């Protein structure tokens, strides 16, 4: 009897544990419904969760009405340049539709966001609407028929039309079947900027050739100033810088375009540019610690802290350049590289870089269709587009932009880009995401001289070749 007194409570506890497990097994949907955004989004995450809880309660007591739950995912979270412009309008939209829609906003930092979407793709749990990259980045999703042909969206929308967008903006989202699977939001321009006061302080002229860059760099190095704040961590900003240099060589533009259709990466030009980068490292032009000072923010910070004289950046970083530094910055052409035939002052990298994609299944779901449509109309609206331009975004949509609300550096960029020919970068034409990743990680290796220029080109080519098998 005494023995049983111990056994029965113990068995009961075991049963409770077993029941708990069963409950865990059924929690799949509950977890999904109450999913919170990342910690950077704690504020909005809490609001979302509260709303979802309310929705769940409403469902339980049968008062849910016609409310539809939709999930919107983006990397425009807290810490991103667009957050301050996007979030207030999103909240407004949410408030306007609170009786008909429960919107879960999922935001993550860019690199985590890419992985999150890939994982969700694999688990069949894609958000209903999400911002994403085109080209090789969306290929798997297009191949699997997960994304909506945006012509279907434009046909259904009374507010947004395909003609509202710049010519050619859809190219980045156009798949091999000729259909576009994304609504382009952001276009961009790569700029090479120089610190006017540092050049003035050492009485230096902006370099126009590589030889001049070498001389200027020597002076800066002697004065403990990093000549070029360009590192490589996860391929940023090195990857776009590599493409910018690449475009100076004969046939380079065609080679970059050809990548999308199965062209080769391992070209004479690729090795040549990689050799120039290695020479830049040897000449002490780049930060000694390219890994720790890599990434968009890391590289830019050296420049904005006036520890570096020049850098290469994009408008999505303009939010992080102080007004004083915007005033103190001059956009200059990248010096012409040895053997280059294209005048760098005649070109600027410019391309569609980001947009909005729609989960095909959600759009075709009669219960969700109207909510998804309304959400897309909001994300592609003139109002939001205009607001986002204040962060430094160049819109793909034809909207009137109030010049007074733009940053000084954006004015300078627009002026500089006026008479330039737009060129592509490898990022937008690489046929697959793994090739982009390999280019990024191999550039990191090249920047610390762990591999040779030839090995760099071979590693990227190996991925392209493997994908052709």
């Amino acid at each position, binding site marked *: 009897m005494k023995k049983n007194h111990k056994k029965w409570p113990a068995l009961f506890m075991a049963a409770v544990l077993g029941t708990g497990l069963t409950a865990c097994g059924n929690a799949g949907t509950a977890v999904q419904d109450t999913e919170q955004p990342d910690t950077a989004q704690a504020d909005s995450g809490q609001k979302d969760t509260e709303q979802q809880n309310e929705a769940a309660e409403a469902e339980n007591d049968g008062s849910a009405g016609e409310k539809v739950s939709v999930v919107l995912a983006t990397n425009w979270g807290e810490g991103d340049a667009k957050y301050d412009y996007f979030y207030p309008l999103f909240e407004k939209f949410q408030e306007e539709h609170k009786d008909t829609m429960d919107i879960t906003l999922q935001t993550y930092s860019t690199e985590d966001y890419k992985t999150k979407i890939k994982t969700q793709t694999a688990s069949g749990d894609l958000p209903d609407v999400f911002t994403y990259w085109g080209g090789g980045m969306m290929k798997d999703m297009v191949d699997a028929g997960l994304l909506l042909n945006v012509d279907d969206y434009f046909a259904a929308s009374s507010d947004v039309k395909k003609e509202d967008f710049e010519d050619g903006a859809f190219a980045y989202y156009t798949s091999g079947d000729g259909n576009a699977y994304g609504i382009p939001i952001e276009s961009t321009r790569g700029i090479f900027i120089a610190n006017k006061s540092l050049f003035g302080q050492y009485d230096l002229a902006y370099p126009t050739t590589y030889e001049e860059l070498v001389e200027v760099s020597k002076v800066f190095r002697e004065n403990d100033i990093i000549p070029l704040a360009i590192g490589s961590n996860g391929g940023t900003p090195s990857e776009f810088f590599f493409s910018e240099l690449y475009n100076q060589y004969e046939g380079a533009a065609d080679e970059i375009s050809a990548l999308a259709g199965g062209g080769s990466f391992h070209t004479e030009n690729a090795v040549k540019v990689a050799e120039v980068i290695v020479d830049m490292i040897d000449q002490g032009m780049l930060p000694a610690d390219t890994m*720790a000072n890599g990434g968009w923010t890391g590289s830019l910070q050296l420049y904005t802290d006036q520890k570096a004289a020049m850098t290469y950046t994009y408008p999505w970083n303009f939010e992080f350049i102080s007004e004083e530094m915007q005033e103190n910055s001059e956009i200059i052409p990248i010096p012409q590289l040895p053997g280059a035939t294209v005048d760098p002052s005649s070109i600027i990298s410019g391309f569609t870089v980001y947009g909005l994609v729609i989960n095909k299944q959600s759009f075709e779901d009669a219960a969700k269709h109207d909510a998804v449509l309304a959400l897309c109309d909001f994300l592609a609206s003139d109002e939001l587009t205009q607001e986002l331009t204040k962060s430094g975004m160049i819109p793909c949509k034809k909207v009137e932009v109030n010049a007074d609300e733009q940053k000084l550096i954006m004015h300078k960029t627009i002026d500089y880009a006026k008479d330039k020919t737009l060129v592509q970068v490898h990022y937008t034409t690489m046929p697959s995401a793994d090739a982009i990743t390999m280019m990024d990680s191999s550039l990191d290796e090249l920047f610390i*001289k762990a591999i040779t220029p030839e090995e760099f080109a071979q590693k990227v080519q190996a991925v392209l070749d493997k994908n052709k098998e």
Partner: protein
Amino acid sequence: MSSKKKENLFAAGFLLPVFVIYTVFLFLPLVNTAFYSLTKWNGVTDKVFTGIKNYQELFYNSDYWITFRNTVKLVVITLAIQIPVGLLLAYLLYIKTKGAKLFRTVFFLPVVIAPVAISLMFSLFYNSEIGVFNRILEMMGLGRFQTNWLSNTKTLLYAVMAPQVWQYIGLYVTIFLGALQSVPEELVESAEIDGAGKIRTFFYVVLPQITDFTNICIILCVTGSLKAFEHSWIMTGGGPGVRSAYLGVYMYKTAFVNSDFGTGSAITMTIVALSLVITVLLKSISAFRKE
């Protein structure tokens, strides 16, 4: 129902939850992973059975072998540093060092801090432009050792290993301290009366008494190293390339960043195999020592 049957039923009742947990969350996913490792699968389109092709490709993949070597190096270094240092610090605390309570807390503190926070802190320390590590070296007159810790192929891997090795020493200090406190005092006293010095007492009396704890620490150390991920991922993303990646990081990058779930699963299976080999090896050594 006979008493034996009842006993068996009770035993089964207690074992069932564990059995279910292991089957559902460990065994079945492992079988699934083994199957995925024999396919070409990007996580979206249909899986294509390719046999052992993923393993063959891994065998000729230099990146895989770099991460394999990195993982083995981590196992060796953690074993060589964490266990002896943990034991030494625990022994110092055990022999009633002044301020032992304070030191005990200080040693254990890093263990409870999130690896993400530690990793971020170390990446800032290492930064040659804004970090304090090179400055400290300079102030100590060791300026010649200054380097770009995360951008120098010779220091990169060890710079990434260092925070992980440092962070978990406190765990072993705690385990060893508990073990040392369980050694009967009369044993130590009689050894000392017999004229054994502190060092001989430690090696010939104390150490044999805590063999089981040492084995536990070794297993924790090895398994912790084999599944190492956070420090490498946060500090360098496993890069440049895969030069500071361990097998776990390489698997994650392959499966979740490159969407190559087939190869990612094959890497996972090799981690499982490596873990099994090391476990069997450790068990054999332990059994041999007992004999």
